């Protein structure tokens, strides 16, 4: 279109209600997921035994968040077709017609490069490499390859979401340690029970989109069994974390209480059949899902509290 045509009656007569605003481009970055990325990356960074200048720490977390957002934009670009048929995602910017797929691709690629380069410049290239790998893993391995192919998609997707605390730790220390691997394991093992509980009560969405969720491919009984197994393994790892330098008495107390509740919830889900769940409109599954949100937040929050207590000279162990 030439600039001469912009004042033409035809152009001015068009409806622009669907034109993208800044908030639509921001929504491409999945801000809600970004808050989890920011929080867990910040905990990983602050729990590390090496202190980082506050402004560098702020910038590093910002660049990790932008990298996470970039992978979200690339995920929306690739998954626009299935987002359009799922009620939960139909209002995302691409299926809503606000942003084109090419725009999302451009923003995703540009912000990926930007975040990795600037994280490397602000902190170190090991952390930047880990961020680059996380973006690659989430976009190529999970979104493009395995999400529509295997019912273990949630397990693999969980790995991508579990990297931020490891990156935060690497920003401070320049490497990996038992503590950062356990922080990774915490989110990694938490993701499957969290999403399978959700899939038990919003089953139709995934069926319509043709995404192979465990509940569909292997049956809902199998999903209940998987939730219990993953929750028990998660509890072991979560409690083990208390005895590393990233843990502490606050973390141990939180982990003991929440893991007991979480295993009890998983056991209740395992014990039930579909008739029982239908009878109370999936009350137990919904309660478990809500508890899972608190579970992750409280565990990382407790790591943060213990890290602050240690910095203040009030740490009991390590």
């Amino acid at each position, binding site marked *: 279109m030439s*600039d*001469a045509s*912009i*004042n*033409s009656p035809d152009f*001015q007569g068009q409806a*622009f209600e669907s*034109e*993208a*605003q*800044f*908030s639509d*481009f*921001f929504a491409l970055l999945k801000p809600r997921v970004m808050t989890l990325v920011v929080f867990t990356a910040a905990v990983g960074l602050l729990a590390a035994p090496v202190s980082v*200048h506050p*402004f*560098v720490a702020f*910038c590093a977390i*910002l660049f990790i968040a932008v990298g996470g957002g970039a992978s979200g934009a690339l995920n929306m670009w690739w998954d626009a077709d299935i987002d359009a048929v799922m009620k939960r995602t139909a209002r995302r910017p691409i299926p809503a017609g606000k942003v084109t797929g090419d725009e999302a691709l451009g923003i995703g690629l540009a912000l990926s490069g930007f975040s990795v380069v600037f994280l490397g*410049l*602000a902190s170190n290239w090991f952390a930047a490499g880990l961020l680059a790998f996380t973006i690659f893993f989430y976009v190529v391995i999970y979104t493009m390859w395995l999400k529509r192919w295997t019912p273990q998609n949630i397990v693999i997707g969980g790995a991508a979401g579990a990297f931020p605390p490891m990156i935060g730790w690497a920003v401070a220390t320049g490497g990996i340690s038992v503590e950062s691997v356990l922080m990774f394991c915490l989110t990694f093992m938490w993701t499957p029970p969290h999403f399978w509980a959700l899939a038990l009560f919003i089953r139709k969405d995934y069926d319509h989109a043709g995404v192979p969720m465990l509940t569909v491919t292997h049956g809902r009984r199998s999903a209940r069994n998987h939730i219990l197994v993953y929750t028990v393994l998660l509890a072991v790892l979560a409690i083990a974390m208390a005895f590393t330098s990233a843990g502490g008495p606050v973390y141990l107390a939180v982990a003991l209480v929440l893991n007991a509740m979480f295993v009890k919830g998983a056991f209740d889900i395992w014990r039930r059949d579909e008739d029982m769940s239908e009878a109370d409109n999936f009350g137990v599954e919904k309660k478990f899902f809500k508890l899972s949100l608190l579970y992750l937040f409280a565990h990382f929050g407790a790591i943060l509290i213990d890290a602050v207590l240690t910095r203040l000279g009030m740490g009991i162990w390590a």
Partner: protein
Amino acid sequence: MSLNKQHEIHTRRFGRNLGVGLTLGAFIAIIFGLTVVKVSQGDSEPSRAPAATEATQ
């Protein structure tokens, strides 16, 4: 025909342009701040090669 001074597109895209402008401004502030921190910490000095270090001793 050129774009009018107060074309409708200016008001329609005001929010979008403001968002981009503020983002760019924040980016400049961050790079400036990082530069100040790196310089004051001495991170910006290139590390000396071992041979050069030995020669000075």
